[in-house]
């Protein structure tokens, strides 16, 4: 039976997940298990493995899918526990690493940390690789692309772009490379030397470089091009640029080329270039059997011959006519004559070479490429076990020996199998225990069939992380014949069955075709070749280790798919980011926000300043537009309270009837320069605070905080609530109004907030310091009023008792700030965030009053005794104006006192949250510097592009209302804004800027709604 667990938003790179799958596959009770991210391609793999459950089908690219086939449901618990342990080990390791290397999560930070970077090492899932190569090139970086599954069209486009910019794209699907002696990806440790290689084949490069190293030579650069570079469409762009680069690289005296036979025209071009450079060249077009050398270009038949010719050229020795022993390397085993040769390879090019040599010797008609078979003729078979068909959803055979062990067992049982060829590829990236695992399999097979022969080759050097000599010993001790090269291994295998290779001498004939001037190399390319690489490692963190060990520098880019892996959104982001005026426009908005000059000037009846309320049965509510029927219970409760407060109904029943019969009109606070906490219900005679932003002279309003307990904003509407509202309107408001009028121009809010933020307020969940600062300012004024002492005492007592009184002052302040900034209609800055209990709504600078909404989340946090998460109402209130202007959750670090109360964990978690919020904002507000954040200003100016790109949505600190009207507040916590409203805003912005057509925008919008 299949069991599924989907871990939402738990991104891990594919190598980690493959290792994890490998780790948990052997657990007792597991028939089959697979862990992958929820991309479309991975779902196909699940489907083929019979593991695509309905839950897995619904997973998103950022979700981790775990599907288990087991006869026992409880096994899933063990799998999950093992998974957590495995990933937590990784995360601890990564934390330790990050202390040293300061990992980054975007290109901008990567460039900041390593400004002189010259190479991006890209190992992200193939579907995202083209975009990251593009990003690397846009940042003027050469790219080494380990990722595969990039379309030929993209490869061609990107290589043309790179060439134009003087940059090199090595790959895609480039498994191996050495740049200035720094091993990249799956690579052996090879000493430096005067040989430079360019290869379209990973294991081809590994075989040649390791033989050179073992012969005493060295290779400074081995530039991988990716397997399709010499195809017609790409036209060997990378190979030709690399050859020209090596021609201009003085320490390189000999150039080596490794490739499968290219398209004719491409071959002619490359060969012409090779003859044009003033350095000797050895070239192998694997699969061709050259019968001569040509001028200074020496043509090899095998990878070993390539290495040996390169060595002679490097030592300034004459190239020999023949590099193959005249006699067979092994006498035939009489019992093996007529038996078959089987190749079980982890290295694709080694398999290809074996297939070629066996086919030539046995006249089998050449090599094939069919479901992992390189050769399949007359019972002789060579398999490339690194082929996609064997590696989809499981580790490469260089990492995981299981597939080879299976195949060894399978072939060893066949009576006509005579010799089995194996490779063991050492170096960075490959398994440390492979020789051990293979030796064990060889030993077991020989115990059953002693007449069988195993012939092995080990691709490695003495400096590799594994022990090369020990690997040889292990395999020899198990009974395998260990050869120095793949070519020798294949020849020994052929000798054992009574056959041999035929390698005639090669003479040098003059090159008679034209040569051409060698193109100059760009400064970037020469910099790459003459200096140690400075690497931005995008993806698999392991790849950075050898870079640092071998003298390179680097920064780890902890990559996650941007825009949640949505390819359309990724494209859109690229287009939007390419808009050249956007940054200036956003800066304009930021300046308006920073230069805001809010003053608390008055406290008045709402109807006196909001004409839409005067004389109408109209209520204001929090959030984007919503009907009474759509409101959640607490907001409806607030409406009932307001109707009763205004005296429009005599009791609750009548109030309900009026509301249900749509006798009351509704408007958003935000549409009338106002904001309101929680339900945000505001009516004509309720008192509102008046904030004037002197930057633009605009006013903003907010109802006053009623204190805690049963209050209208949480949906309570009992007589106690109505009485308090009346007192606030009739006593509190006039008193405060009179007090404020004693000041010329009102009370400067920025000053109060700047003080309070250093005292531990973040102004959403914690306002006690600001409320006290306010009381300190206003109390002397109240005392000086010519009113009854009792009134003075009541008012001051209320202010002293109401810790959150300042919340409403901050909210009106925030509203006054954004409304001033909203007069400028450009850019991608979020100018409003609000929630109505049903939808989370945002507005952005370029699109004025247009709302972009998505269903709200329900806050999570700590609950008062007797209440739990089940009692929580979905997110509600205009108070997210706090986060819109950089307070609340955005400034969590400022208020260590509330982090536990809102369920955000400890101090470090608060710091983490604020650091994360800083990733989606455009800048800092120097007016409000936070001591616990090393006096950095609040992170302000949420950019929808950054939000969509990173998938990080603003964290809102919030009170939690009971979902039952009248109960009031039941707890406090945090809630994330939903991503979809930012995505919708981005689509609309792109359409507004003419980047996409209306129908495309509509269809993307539809997809977002459905998602």
């Amino acid at each position, binding site marked *: 039976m299949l069991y599924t667990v989907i871990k939402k938003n738990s991104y891990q790179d594919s190598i980690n997940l493959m290792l994890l799958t490998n780790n948990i596959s052997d657990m007792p009770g597991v028939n089959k298990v697979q862990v992958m991210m929820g991309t479309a391609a991975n779902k196909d793999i699940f489907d083929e493995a019979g593991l695509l459950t309905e839950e897995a089908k619904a997973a998103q690219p950022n979700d981790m899918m775990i599907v288990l086939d087991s006869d026992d449901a409880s096994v899933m618990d063990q799998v999950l526990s093992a998974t957590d342990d495995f990933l937590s080990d990784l995360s601890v390791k990564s934390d330790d690493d990050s202390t040293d290397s300061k990992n980054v999560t975007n290109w901008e930070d990567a460039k900041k940390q390593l400004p002189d970077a010259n190479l991006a090492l890209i190992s992200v899932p193939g579907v995202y690789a083209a975009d990251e190569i593009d990003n690397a090139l846009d940042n003027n970086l050469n790219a080494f692309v380990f990722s595969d599954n990039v379309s030929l069209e993209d490869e061609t486009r990107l290589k043309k772009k790179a060439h134009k910019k003087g940059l090199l794209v090595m790959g895609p699907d480039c498994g191996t490379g050495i740049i*200035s*002696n720094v091993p990249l990806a799956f690579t052996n440790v090879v000493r*430096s030397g005067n040989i430079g290689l360019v290869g379209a084949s990973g294991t081809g490069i590994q075989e040649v470089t390791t033989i050179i190293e073992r012969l005493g030579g*060295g290779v400074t650069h081995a530039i991988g091009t990716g397997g399709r570079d010499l195809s017609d469409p790409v036209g060997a762009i990378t190979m030709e640029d690399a050859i020209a680069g090596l021609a201009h690289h*003085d*320490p390189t005296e000999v150039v080596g080329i490794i490739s499968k036979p290219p398209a004719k025209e491409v071959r002619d071009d490359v060969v012409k270039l090779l003859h044009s450079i003033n350095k000797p060249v050895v070239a192998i077009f694997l699969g061709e059997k050259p019968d001569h050398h040509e001028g200074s270009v020496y043509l090899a038949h095998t990878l070993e011959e390539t290495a040996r010719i390169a060595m002679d050229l490097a030592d300034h020795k004459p190239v020999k006519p023949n590099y193959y022993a005249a006699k067979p390397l092994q006498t035939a085993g009489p019992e093996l004559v007529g038996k078959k040769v089987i190749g079980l390879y982890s290295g694709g090019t080694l398999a290809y070479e074996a297939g070629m040599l066996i086919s030539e010797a046995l006249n089998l008609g050449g090599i094939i490429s069919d479901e992992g078979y390189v050769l399949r003729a007359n019972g002789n078979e060579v398999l490339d076990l690194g082929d996609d068909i064997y590696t989809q959803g499981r580790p490469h055979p260089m990492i995981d020996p299981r597939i080879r062990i299976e195949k060894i067992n399978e072939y060893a049982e066949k009576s006509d199998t005579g010799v089995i060829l194996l490779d063991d590829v050492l170096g960075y990236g490959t398994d440390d225990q492979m020789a051990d695992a293979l030796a064990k399999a060889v030993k077991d097979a020989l115990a059953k069939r002693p007449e069988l022969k195993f012939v092995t080759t080990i691709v490695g050097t003495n400096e590799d992380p594994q022990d090369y000599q020990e690997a040889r010993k292990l395999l020899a001790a198990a009974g395998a014949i260990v050869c120095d090269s793949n070519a020798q291994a294949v020849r020994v295998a052929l000798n054992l069955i009574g056959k041999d290779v035929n390698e005639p001498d090669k003479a040098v004939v003059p090159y008679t075709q034209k040569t051409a001037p060698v193109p100059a190399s760009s400064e970037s390319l020469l910099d790459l070749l003459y*200096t140690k690489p400075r690497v931005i490692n995008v993806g698999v963190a392991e790849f950075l280790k050898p870079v640092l060990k*071998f003298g390179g520098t680097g920064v780890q880019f902890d990559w996650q798919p941007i825009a949640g892996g949505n390819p359309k959104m990724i494209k859109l982001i690229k287009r939007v980011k390419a808009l050249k005026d956007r940054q200036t426009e956003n800066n304009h908005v930021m300046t308006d926000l920073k230069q805001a000059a809010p003053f608390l000037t008055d406290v008045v009846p709402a109807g006196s300043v909001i004409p839409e309320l005067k004389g109408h049965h109209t209520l204001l509510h929090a959030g984007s537009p919503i009907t009474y029927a759509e409101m959640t219970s607490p907001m409806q409760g607030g409406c009932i309270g307001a109707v009763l407060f205004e005296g429009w109904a005599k009791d609750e029943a009548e109030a309900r009837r009026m509301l249900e019969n749509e006798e009351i009109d509704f408007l958003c606070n935000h549409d009338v320069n106002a904001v309101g906490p929680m339900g945000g219900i505001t009516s004509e005679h309720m008192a509102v605070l008046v904030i004037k932003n002197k930057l633009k002279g605009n006013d903003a309003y907010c109802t006053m905080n009623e204190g805690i307990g049963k209050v209208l904003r949480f949906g309570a509407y009992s007589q106690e609530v109505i009485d308090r509202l009346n007192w606030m309107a009739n006593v509190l408001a006039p008193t405060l109004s009179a007090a404020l009028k004693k000041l010329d121009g009102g009370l400067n809010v920025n000053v109060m907030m700047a003080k309070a933020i250093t005292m531990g307020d973040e102004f959403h969940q914690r306002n006690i310091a600001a409320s006290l600062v306010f009381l300190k300012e206003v109390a002397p004024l109240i005392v000086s009023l010519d009113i009854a002492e009792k009134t003075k005492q009541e008012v001051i007592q209320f202010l002293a008792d109401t810790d959150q009184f300042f919340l409403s002052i901050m909210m009106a302040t925030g509203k006054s700030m954004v409304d001033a900034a909203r007069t400028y209609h450009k850019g991608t800055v979020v100018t409003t965030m609000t929630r109505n209990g049903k939808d989370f709504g945002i507005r952005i600078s370029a699109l004025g009053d247009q709302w972009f909404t998505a269903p709200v989340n329900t806050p999570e946090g700590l609950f008062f005794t007797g209440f739990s998460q089940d009692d929580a109402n979905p997110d509600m209130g205009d108070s997210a104006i706090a986060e819109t202007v950089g307070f609340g959750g955005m400034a969590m670090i400022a208020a260590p006192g509330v982090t536990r109360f809102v369920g955000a964990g400890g101090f470090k978690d608060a710091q983490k949250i604020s650091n994360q919020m800083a990733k989606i904002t455009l800048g800092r507000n120097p007016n409000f510097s936070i001591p616990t954040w090393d006096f950095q200003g609040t992170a302000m100016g949420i950019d929808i592009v950054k939000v969509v790109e990173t998938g990080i949505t603003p964290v809102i600190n919030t009170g939690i209302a009971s979902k039952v009207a009248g109960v009031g507040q039941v707890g406090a916590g945090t809630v994330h804004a939903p991503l979809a409203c930012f995505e919708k805003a981005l689509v609309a912005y792109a359409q507004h800027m003419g980047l996409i057509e209306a129908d495309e925008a509509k269809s993307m919008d539809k997809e977002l709604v459905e998602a």
Partner: protein
Amino acid sequence: MTDNDLANGERSSWLSLYLFNHDCGRVTGLFKHSLNIQFSGILFHLGRKTETLSCLGITLPDDQVMSILRQVSVDDQARFINGTIYLYTQMTVLAVPVMTLKEVNLTVPTNLSPTLLPAALAKFQQIPFQEKWGLANMEQASRLSNQLLSANLAADIQAVAGHLVGRGRGLTPSGDDIMVGFTTALTAFQDPRAALWRETLATLAKQNVTTSVSVAYLRAASERVASQKLIHLIAALKQGSTTDILAAIQSVENFGHTSGIDTLFGFATGLTARLSE
């Protein structure tokens, strides 16, 4: 390292005669402050700028030499390409500029001023060669001096040289240093025996009778070339003050374990020959 401009050093004028584009070499000696690279035509010496410029090589700023020494190993390959020596180490390619360095003429000067020589001789006579040289009691200093001075014919010179070559210990055995000092003095003073001694040294340099480093210096002496310290001494004798001479003698004396003393012994003997005329 390859991108660094290390051109702040000196090179011997003699190099260009023996170091050619694409010459292959290997690091053969690593010392505390210097290294040797054996090219087909020359045993190349890389030393620190604060020490003497060998006629076989170059000097670079001390920190750069020390940085190179930290990174190279014996047997590392070297190539001289387009005026730069590339050292191929396990981890990286080091570029050592050669032809961009300031060229210093290390050809032995001649026509010395006779008036300055007695002061030098007086200083030499104060040096207890027998105590400080590298031959200890293997030889009597005065007897060896006489042997050197009395050999006038080719056969006699070959006999003395045959006795001294490779004699003593170290990278440059004392016997060789003595012959280098003596022959250089004869060359500087244009002694009639100088040519015979140079021929003898050239012949010895071709035989496998002493260390490779010594061979290089014997050959240099046979080609009228000497290390910078010795050249400075000769230059001081030619036109400097007494103070200059004494300082130059001291400088040679301080070189190496006994190499400087041994060379000075040879040179002093040559000077005696000149003064005895």
